[in-house]
């Protein structure tokens, strides 16, 4: 049962990643692109944790944590660059 549910979740998040990619290509403005990239980061965390669950290993949690931090920092840096033309003033 868990196996089928894991495959279902894998499929959902993979499809979500593809939708985000499509949004990045067709986005009308930079704000949407930042949003889609941030969502891709979050979906990548989910996929990584799912992979760890499927393999029964705890190694992927550290990687997921690092991706979560990188995603936050890069989203804020991108938004700040658009807002101020500079990241650290």
């Amino acid at each position, binding site marked *: 049962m*868990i196996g089928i549910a894991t495959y279902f979740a894998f499929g959902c998040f993979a499809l979500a990643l593809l939708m985000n990619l499509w949004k990045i290509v067709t986005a009308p403005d930079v704000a949407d692109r930042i949003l889609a990239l941030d969502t891709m980061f979050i979906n990548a965390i989910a996929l990584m944790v799912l992979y760890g669950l499927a393999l029964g290993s705890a190694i992927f949690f550290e990687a997921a944590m690092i991706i*979560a931090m990188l995603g936050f920092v890069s989203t804020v840096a991108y938004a700040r660059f*658009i807002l101020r033309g500079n990241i650290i003033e």
Partner: protein
Amino acid sequence: MDSLFEFLVSAFLVIAGIFGIVGSFGLLKLDDPMSRLHAPTKATTLGVGGVLLASMLNAAAFGEYFSMHELMITLFLFLTAPITAHFIAKVHIHRQETRETMPAAGEDDHWATHDTPEDEERRNAAADPADL
């Protein structure tokens, strides 16, 4: 007892997957930029929360270890999602809106995102002319 945990983990995974796909589908489907902000910041964050809960339950019930790392990631994501949403909304105000299209800013004459250096100088000069 084992089948109960199995059911719980599977339910969390399915719910998380549905939330994740709804978040990204909303990003494609909604047509106003500020409505588009809702879908990923709420639904996708919940979806990841579900995956992390399922992973924690799974490790505690069937694995040989019990870890709280997932809770840390969940907490971090729930803390940072509103901040990123706020920044993206500010980018939208900065690029798509003008002072005329924004709603009234209360006692100020415009929103801080539209502030220019000249505005700041004018405000400082008006606030305390004696100090200058």
